[in-house]
């Protein structure tokens, strides 16, 4: 636990600088800004309580991201399956000829993926991490990262090709 005032101060500085970026990642993992804030706070508490175990201070952001992914996965496991969280009300219709609408459709489909697959997509295509770095951050093998990403992309392709609001399909 963080009884060290120097580490305490460094952690505060880290949070004040990196919180917005971490919140963005949390939002992509949860699909809701309110829940993203909860996820970020919960993850920061966990890391703060384990600060004394962190040897490499430069890797702290990686620790926080890893805890965020694991926590969001654990939250996802505990809720029921089949939910499709969305910022839009269900009755709001999308215009199939609008690029924004296609983006919203893709977003909804990403949110419907299992949490671990979604996390791999976020780390690969939002954080721009390599497969090796993604594997290291998630604590899984590179092969698992590849298979999770491949499975997620395949699922998205199938669902988007079935979705009438997506013009032209995807490749």
């Amino acid at each position, binding site marked *: *636990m*963080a009884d060290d005032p120097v580490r305490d101060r460094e952690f*505060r500085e880290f*949070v*004040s600088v990196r*919180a*917005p970026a971490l*919140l*963005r990642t949390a*939002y*992509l993992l*949860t699909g*809701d*800004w*309110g*829940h993203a*804030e*909860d996820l*970020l*706070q919960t993850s*920061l*508490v966990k890391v*703060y*309580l384990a600060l004394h175990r962190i040897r490499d201070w430069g890797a702290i952001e990686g620790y926080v991201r890893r805890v965020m992914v694991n926590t969001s996965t654990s*939250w996802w496991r*505990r*809720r*029921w399956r*089949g*939910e*499709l*969280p*969305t*910022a839009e*009300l*269900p*009755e*709001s219709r999308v215009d199939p000829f609008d690029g924004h609408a*296609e*983006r919203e459709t*893709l*977003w909804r489909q*990403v949110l419907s993926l299992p949490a671990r697959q979604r996390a791999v*997509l*976020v780390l690969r*295509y*939002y954080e721009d991490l390599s497969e090796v770095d993604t594997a290291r951050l998630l604590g899984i093998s590179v092969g698992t990262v590849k298979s999770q990403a491949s499975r997620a*992309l395949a699922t*998205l*392709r199938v669902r*988007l090709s079935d979705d009438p609001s997506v013009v032209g399909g*995807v*490749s």
Partner: protein
Amino acid sequence: MNRLETELREMFAAKTREVPAMSDPMHIVLPRARRIRRRYRTGLASAIAVVVILTLLAGFRIGGHFRSTPPVSPNPPHDSVEMIVNDELVRPDGTRIPLRGRQVTWAARVPAGLLFVDSDQRLLEMREDRLIHGILPGEQQSPVPSRNGWRVVTTDRRGTLFHGTLSATAGTARHGAVGRHRAAQIVGWYGQHVVLRDVTDTGMRYALVDLSHPDAELGWAADGQMVLLGESRRRFYWGLKPSADAGQCLVRVAPERRFEVVEEACDLGLPADVAIPGTIEWPSELSGHQVALSPDGRYLAVEDGRLRVLDLDTAFSEPRWIAGCPASETFTWVARDTLVSGNTACRVEPSGRVTSESLPPQPAGARVLYVTSYGL
């Protein structure tokens, strides 16, 4: 790179282009971490104490000198109970802070300070024992803080929803108004949305309001009999619905799917006639035994001659009723794990153990209002 990967990158970038205002997370992280640390240390100390006591007892038994020991209450709940007595705020440590003649009708402790509604029906904020300013009109019903205590929503007399984000450093709250929803009642927060309840001739209906889109038309979903209680800890809503055998079913509801019931449990022994504090008085059958959700959505407390607490984290897999809190006609959740029943504060530990402690007696005729904490 194929087209889907490019679209993913563009979509992720677009979705995160605008980040909503956020208070400094450390104002939540530090108190939560300290609380966990304190409990860990207290738990460790009490475990050691139990071992020592058991060892001593065993020694006494062997020596033939058994003596009973008082019950151990290592973590008394009173340290989290704050109340307003007449026009004074009484802190858990007994400190009294005068509220200068303001008659408080509602109060909540949040990480930024104390929120309360005075007799002029204004929502006010106090920090470090100093009144800061009025935040929002609080004219129609009790304001509703978010689970982490950094946001608050209320309505004025005309039905306009007002919402504010509390700031830890500045003394002001950013706030905005959202379209009028006359007669609607705030049930609670759901992420960045607010759930509203309305009463029609055929029963209750619900809507999800996106506070960031004030002009969005509300899509009301009607169920009639279902009473929503509040947000769970895991992205859904808890509610009650009459069962076929005249009891109540606990239901798990997806607000974003037009409040569809996704799971229900009807064999939990919930009383048929329940009263939900703060709920519009409809139908009349809803005036019965008090039922209330804890501020973080973990526990459901039910008073039906006895006071029982249901751990909602396991309600559908391994239902567990927790007993041990003294029953009284009314009770109030004052923290995520603590309720006050009669003159006793009662804390429910995650293990299911209950610790309780009597609160200091108040003068006869005193007006006592317990302060509920959020995000602490």
